[in-house]
Each structure stands twice: as C-alpha cells, then as structure tokens.
C-alpha cells in the first residue's frame, strides 16, 4: 500500500476529472515543477493507484436513454452454477457492471438500454433466461453523481 500526501491527492483529484492535460499543464495548475509532477504520476501509476485513461460518453446522445440497476438472487447455488451464471451474464453487451455481493441479493448489475421497451427485451430475452436465475429486482436510474471519494485535501 502506498502513502499519499496532499499533493498526491490533488493530482488524483485532477486526473480523475480530466486525464488529458500533459504533466506540464497539470504542474502549472498545481504550482509544481513539471518533473516533480511527472515523477508523482509515474509513482501513482506504478503503485497501481491510477488505472488508465477512460473516455466519458453521453449515453443519452448515443441513443441509450435508460439505465437500470438489477438485484439478482440465484435459484440454485453451487460452484458450477456461479461460474455458468457469471460466464453468461458478462457476455451480454448491455450489462456494464456485474458485482458478486453479500446480502439480500447475490449479484448486482448495471444495464443500459435504448428505452424501457428495449430494456424489457433485454430483461426477458437475456436476463431472465440466464442459468440459475431466481428473483430479480429492477430500479430505473433517475440521476447519478460521481464524487471524488476519500481524497480529502
């Protein structure tokens, strides 16, 4: 595990928001030297803290207007059924997130679709036909806010 100082936290905050600027531009913004900033970014990357640049797309503008979170309980449990379920569910392109969880459900899923009719098609044809599937609960996403997380500076 890597220890962070205030400058590291500032760099992480900036980079999660905008990973595009060069280390020079970032250095200027934070009042650091370019080599010092570059060294810190390299250290954070090598420690596995920074995990690569990702593009943020407007799902709605691309015709994907509906996001639904699903809670899923498996009807049958056992090593084989978990593996079968996981293999099948990860292959569905509309499923962005699959998390194995402990609690009321066994898995939580994030699913995108064009609209509610399209979501119903995905639910009926792809989700409800998954091996071992039991109870399914659906909640339609209305708003979402990503926070920086525990990077208190």
């Amino acid at each position, binding site marked *: 595990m*890597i220890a962070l100082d205030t400058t590291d936290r500032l760099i992480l905050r900036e980079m999660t928001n905008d990973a595009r600027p060069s280390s020079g531009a970032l250095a200027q913004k934070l009042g650091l030297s370019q080599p010092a900033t570059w060294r810190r970014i390299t250290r954070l990357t090598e420690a596995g803290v920074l995990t690569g640049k990702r593009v943020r797309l407007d799902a709605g503008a691309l015709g994907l207007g509906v996001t639904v979170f699903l809670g899923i309980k498996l009807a049958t449990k056992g090593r084989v059924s978990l593996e079968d379920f996981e293999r099948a569910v990860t292959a569905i392109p509309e499923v962005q997130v699959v998390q194995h969880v402990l609690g009321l459900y066994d898995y939580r899923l994030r699913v995108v679709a064009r609209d509610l009719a399209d979501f119903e098609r995905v639910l009926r044809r792809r989700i409800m036909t998954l091996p071992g599937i039991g109870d399914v609960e659906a*909640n339609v996403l209305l708003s979402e806010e990503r926070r920086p997380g525990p990077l208190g500076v």
Partner: protein
Amino acid sequence: MLKIDDADRRLLRHLQENASASVAAIAARAGLSTGVAARRLDRLTRAGVIQGYGAGINWRALGYTIEVSLRVTLDKTQGNAFDALIAAAREIPEIDEIQTFLGRVDVRLNVLARDLAHYQDIYRNRILALPHIADIEALMLVANVKNTESLPI
C-alpha cells in the same frame, strides 16, 4: 441533436477500448484517415457526446478494501427528503457514488472503507445520522465480475 453515423460509432468503440491510444491509432482501427478521425472526434467533443477523459482510481491500492452498496428507502412524507439526504451524503468523503431511482429503492450510496471497523464507524456515525432515512439495506462487494464503463454502441 448531432447525427451519429457508423464511422462515429466505430471511433467511439475503439476510444472506449483504449482511451490512451493516439488519434492515428484509433483512426487506423476505425478504417479512417487521421485527419478525418480528428475532425470527427473534435465534432463529437464539441457536441458533448464525448464528455471528457478521466483516470480511474484503484481504491484497493490505497488500502480501501471494503466497498458497500447501501440501498436507501426514504421517508417520503418529508417533502425535501431527496434533496436533504443527497446534500448530507455529499459531506461524507467515503461516499463516491450517489444515485436516485424509480423503484423500490430511492437512493443508492456507494461507500468505501479501509476495513470492517472503519466501515462500522462510517455506518454508525455518518450514514445513520443522514436525514429522512426510512430503511437501509447493505450489499457488500465480494468481487467485480465485470466492470466497464463501455456502452454497447
């Protein structure tokens, strides 16, 4: 709204796969010239389809080994329940995602903690102090089976 054609979709697909690749590399994969690809990416950015580029953070590498999805039901007899809860949740740095839903769950809070003792402390002292909560269910993350921000485009 901006009209998005197949060439745009190919570009965005490759950009989602590897946002760190150069424009030339993405253009080649999408079967376009670098100039055409650069103009199209610029147009998609100006139209807000490409919202930005952010670095991911691996919280485990920072010692946050616990991740819990809290499903909150609100006391809807309070008119400002949503706004009050969300405003208070923003003050808790360990919460990195806040979503609202149409369904049985009203709000989802994603909580990061260093260990179970730290989680218990956040839960008892910060989460349970949030306003207008009628009920909370917790799903503790065991494993990320699939976690992609990628859209099926």
